[in-house]
């Protein structure tokens, strides 16, 4: 009996000791230290706010984040996605921190930087020039080139290549999307380029009362690929880019990609157009 008791006490003590070790953080009363601070994942991927493609406002992280998640899973790649508020922070992480990858619109990189990167298309952004109807007496029309917008003011995102606009005598004001839209309402910006999905998101969120007054400039539709851009300077960059590329083909093949796309683009015709364009980009970057 005495022997059993000692053994039992020993087991209990071990259990108590073990449980106290694993739950230390929950007992602490001082500042908690995040686990991820102590064990950072080496494979970091960054994007800047671009709802609904990349956003902290959706639990899934947005369209691009969901696609990337699906590919990471199928390719058995461990990586962490982070959405930061500024494009300049994304550039910083890629170039200085040598992060594994960034995703979203292609930033304006120098040729030398581009050579150290691997571009893989992950989705398509359908963009249109838009304007605010009450600020203009007549409709703004796209006549095939930028000449027709001479003398107007364009709202550009920081880092957007605006050389061509300036060459055509278009004044440029830079800012975040929300502030550019506000400037359109207050007649300080005449037009800007926006992704259709992003436009819907921003107008629903911030301009629901006057959403209908933001009009697309007809025939100004431009499609452009959104990329995941791997960094060859990251120790796993080239290898994981290869695995990722195979993975994205895989999720298109098994229909996962289409299912994700359906959540963001419910309209069949638009989605099919988007998918067709995406396949073209994939072929181009094969």
């Amino acid at each position, binding site marked *: 009996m005495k022997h059993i008791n000692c053994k039992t006490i020993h087991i209990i003590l071990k259990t108590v000791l073990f449980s106290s070790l694993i739950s230390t953080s929950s007992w602490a009363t001082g*500042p*908690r230290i995040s686990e991820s601070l102590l064990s950072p994942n080496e494979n970091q991927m960054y994007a800047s706010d671009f709802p609904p493609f990349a956003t902290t406002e959706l639990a899934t992280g947005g369209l691009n984040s969901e696609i990337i998640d699906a590919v990471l899973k199928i390719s058995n790649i461990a990586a962490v996605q982070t959405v930061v*508020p500024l494009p300049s*922070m994304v550039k*910083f992480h890629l170039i200085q921190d040598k992060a594994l990858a960034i995703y979203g619109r292609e930033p304006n990189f120098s040729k030398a930087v581009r050579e150290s990167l691997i571009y893989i298309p992950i989705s398509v952004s359908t963009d249109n020039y838009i304007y605010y109807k009450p600020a203009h007496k007549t409709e703004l029309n796209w006549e095939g080139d930028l000449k027709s917008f001479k003398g107007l003011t364009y709202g550009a995102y920081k880092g957007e290549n605006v050389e061509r606009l300036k060459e055509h005598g278009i004044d440029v004001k830079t800012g*975040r999307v929300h502030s550019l839209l506000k400037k359109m309402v207050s007649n300080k910006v005449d037009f800007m380029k926006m992704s259709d999905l992003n436009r819907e998101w921003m107008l629903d969120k911030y301009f629901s009362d006057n959403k209908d007054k933001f009009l697309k400039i007809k025939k100004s539709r431009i499609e452009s690929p959104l990329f995941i851009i791997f960094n060859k300077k990251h120790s796993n960059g080239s290898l994981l880019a290869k695995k990722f590329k195979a993975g994205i083909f895989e999720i298109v093949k098994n229909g996962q990609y289409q299912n994700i796309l359906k959540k963001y683009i419910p309209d069949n015709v638009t989605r099919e157009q988007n998918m067709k364009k995406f396949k073209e980009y994939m072929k181009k970057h094969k």
Partner: protein
Amino acid sequence: MKNWAYTFILFAFLYNLPAVAASYNIVAPEDVGMSTQRLQRLDKLIESHVQEKKIAGAVVLIARKGKIAYFKETGLADINKPMKKDTIFRIVSMTKPITSTAIMLLYEEGKLLLSDPVSKYIPEFMNPKVLELNPEGSEFEYKLVPAKREITVRDLITHQSGMIYLFPANFYHERERILVAEMYKEADITDGFCRPDETIGDMVKRLARLPLYKHPGENWDYSLSIDVLGYLVEVVSGMKFDQFVQKRIFEPLKMNDSHFYIPKEKLERLAAVWKSDWKGSLNRVGSEALIDNYLSLCPSDAYALSGKYLTGGGNVLSTVYDYFRFSQMFLNNGELDGVRLLSRKTIELMTATNHIGKSDARFLHDKDWKFGLGFAIQQGRGHDVDSGDDGVFEWAGIYSTRFSIDPKEEKITIFMSQTSPFGLHFSLWDTILVLSGSAIVD
């Protein structure tokens, strides 16, 4: 009509009188150990400032031992509109102690700990990064390093989060500060003195993901931390910040003229903001923004009847009398007119001087002013003050509003004008404190 009916009507009439009118219980200064004659020096001081067109007008209140001993309005609230005791002011940063009080209400209910990491409630604060300069000649000017620890609630309430305000970059020019301030600008983070067309949550979630200027807990820097606290109140309480403050602070303390957005019927009572060089050039500010490099002020935003932005750092419009009631609650160790808002222990915690270690709260004051949970607290005479004592706590608003609470003398001093720029009223405020202090004769 029977006697009881007359009594009932009289009672109903008295009960429904505006709270402000009924509550201006001004006593003879001598009843609370102050000198009427000495307090009259304040009349001359403010009148001379009005006559010399340094300020358009002001309201000053001195209370002692729970009673108002001096309450005087002088000059103009707006063009052709005299200043009144119930004039409504943009108290801006005097909102901060109100926000801190809201946090401490939740703290007392056990809903948060000061030691909690903010990321527990607002996940965007997880894994903060600090901007540090690279050695000169490096390819990149700065690097982002993981913060030594996460930001806690106490870091926020004591301005030790590592975040900044933009406007101090006008007079502090450290390169790291400027770089962080530029990132704030790029991310459309403002000081909130011009109310953005978004929710405070949207702003805070962006701010949380931007680099810090300093490691949390290592530096005192006046900042947007209190705006974050306002959002934290929303997250923890499940109520909109203005509704929480209305229900839990303004209503119990009968601060009937304190609002985040002004009710239409009170628009008439809102004072105008005046731009003054304190040399005789005094001009009413219209709808234009006052912009000075990193500082942006939009006084006309206060005329908005509603809006999305609810900032814990500077949203509230209030009166001198309402702020007296708020201040008296602190002097009474958390209670006013039989309503207990906070416990004595919490007031002691809020007014303790050991929250920021060896740092000084160098903003309104120089050395020897510490920071409690919501205000600066005097702890020594390193700063060139002419009055006051250890334990005096105070804060200010950017349109030249001030309050000071002296627990030892049980004295409250409140001055409100609506004058810009902020920095030029300091000597007037110091003189008000000298005069209110030297009027104590018991």
